[in-house]
């Protein structure tokens, strides 16, 4: 690595996808690091919203959970859990939602429930849905952040926890999903975006030192590459320094895990 880790370039790339003044529904781990990095750098007016009901949180340190005291103490408003989902997320008031994935398919459908074909007898039991299905349905757009391996990037997810583009064109409209769905999938190799016509994820950017063959190797479907594939520049030292300062506030044993 040339002075930064794969996790760090993912986090910086995700942070740059956020624009100043947006309202952002933040999950824990890497999304929280990315959103807080954005707020500390180019997007000081980013509104951070956590599913614990904290709206406009301005944590000076990274929270370990979505309900750490620092979120409540620095929020513009703290509302109940039914209220955050019913009044704030469901009507489309939140511009962008950040999601992780244990499995993702070529239509950006996400699985965080079970690995294995049989729901009742899973090979691996994952945490489940949490707020993700409704974030995926109702945020203006969704950004997915996840490490990429061939086992995770599959033709069809074992279980649809959160809908990306369903079966392809027209699915979101048919299902009554009001948001635009995933607009970026940021991995440790590069960035995918959905094709505006087919809804299939297309590789649009790669990190320094990564070539298309590397990405294809870790993609479980026939990879499509944008005609306008962009090299993503390495993260500048200034942003890395801010990110490392943020991560240093987490409990020691978890620093690596949280930047996963």
């Amino acid at each position: 690595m040339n002075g930064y880790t794969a996790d760090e370039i993912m986090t910086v790339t995700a942070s740059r996808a956020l624009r100043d003044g947006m309202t952002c529904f933040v999950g824990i781990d890497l999304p929280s690091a990315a959103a807080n990095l954005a707020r500390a750098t180019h997007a000081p007016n980013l509104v951070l919203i956590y599913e614990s009901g904290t709206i406009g949180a301005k944590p000076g340190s990274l929270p370990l959970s979505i309900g750490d005291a620092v979120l409540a103490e620095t929020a513009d408003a703290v509302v109940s859990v039914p209220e955050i989902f019913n009044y704030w997320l469901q009507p489309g008031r939140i511009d962008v939602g950040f999601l992780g994935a244990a499995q993702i398919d070529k239509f950006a459908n996400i699985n965080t429930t079970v690995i294995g074909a049989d729901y009742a007898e899973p090979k691996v039991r994952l945490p489940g849905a949490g707020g993700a299905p409704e974030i995926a349905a109702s945020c203006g757009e969704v950004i997915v952040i996840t490490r990429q391996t061939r086992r995770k990037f599959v033709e069809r997810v074992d279980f649809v926890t959160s809908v990306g583009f369903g079966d392809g064109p027209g699915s979101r409209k048919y299902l009554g999903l009001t948001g635009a769905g995933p607009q970026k999938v940021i991995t440790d190799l590069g960035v995918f975006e959905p094709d505006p016509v087919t809804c299939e994820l297309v590789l649009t950017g790669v990190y320094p030192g990564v070539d298309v063959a590397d990405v294809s190797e870790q993609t479980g479907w026939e990879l499509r590459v944008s005609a306008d594939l962009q090299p993503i520049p390495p993260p500048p030292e200034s942003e890395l320094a801010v990110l490392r300062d943020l991560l240093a506030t987490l409990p020691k044993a978890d620093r690596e895990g949280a930047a996963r």
Partner: protein
Amino acid sequence: MALIVSLPEAIAAAVRDGDTVAMEGFTHLIPHAAGREVIRQGRRDLTLVRMTPDVIYDQLIGAGCARKLVFSWGGNPGVGSLHRFRDAVEHSWPGPLELEEHSHAGMANRYVAGASGLPFAVLRGYSGTGLAGHPGIAEIVCPFTGERLTAVAALRPDVTVIHAQRADRAGNVQYWGITGVQKEAVLAAARSVVTVEEIVDVLDPRPGAVVLPAWAVGYVALAPGGAHPSYALGYSVRDNDLYVAWDAISRDRAAFGRWLDEHVYASERAEKTL
């Protein structure tokens, strides 16, 4: 009208074998002391309801108290898996665990329906997901617009257990900070237990506080530090190091057994340290 009793008395009176039990508190104000007391009293065949099973239900599941889990996100926040939960689901240890799975929005609305005295609530959710059609989740058509929406069945626990900052001597309960879904969970339940950091003469107003009137609460029990390793805003901080350490304790059946012996069964004094 609320009865102010000891924690063992409250659990003995309110929580029975086979009950559907909701212990709520969204990261903040998780009623851990009450959870340990349920383990200590040896309750069995419980249907445990909670949006985020978290470390509290990892402990109850590992101790063999649960028959079924109704939930929406079963991880250790910011850390990883709940290993006792996974061991029960993947290897039926210490016994099989039936699952009923929802999303956060679904669970929150199920409590709202229960608190409202309605059989179901309506939301725009689940559409297109693998959870649609699971028990308690069904499609419904809006009678006014024709829009297809989702109905979720009301949650009506036999007993809800929560932790709050304070109660007064009449049993009126007050809590603030991240208030989660506790009000709905208490109002949806037939019985309730509230553990508190302190009992005071007067509940002076706090910004954003929820007050549950004494006549809407079953039992109130004093349990200072009773949210640990979760926290009570203004009284304690979240013990993030313990959430991280729980990963190793819960990963191994023997290590978890030692934790139970040391921190639950050995003595009530353990309550002071964990």
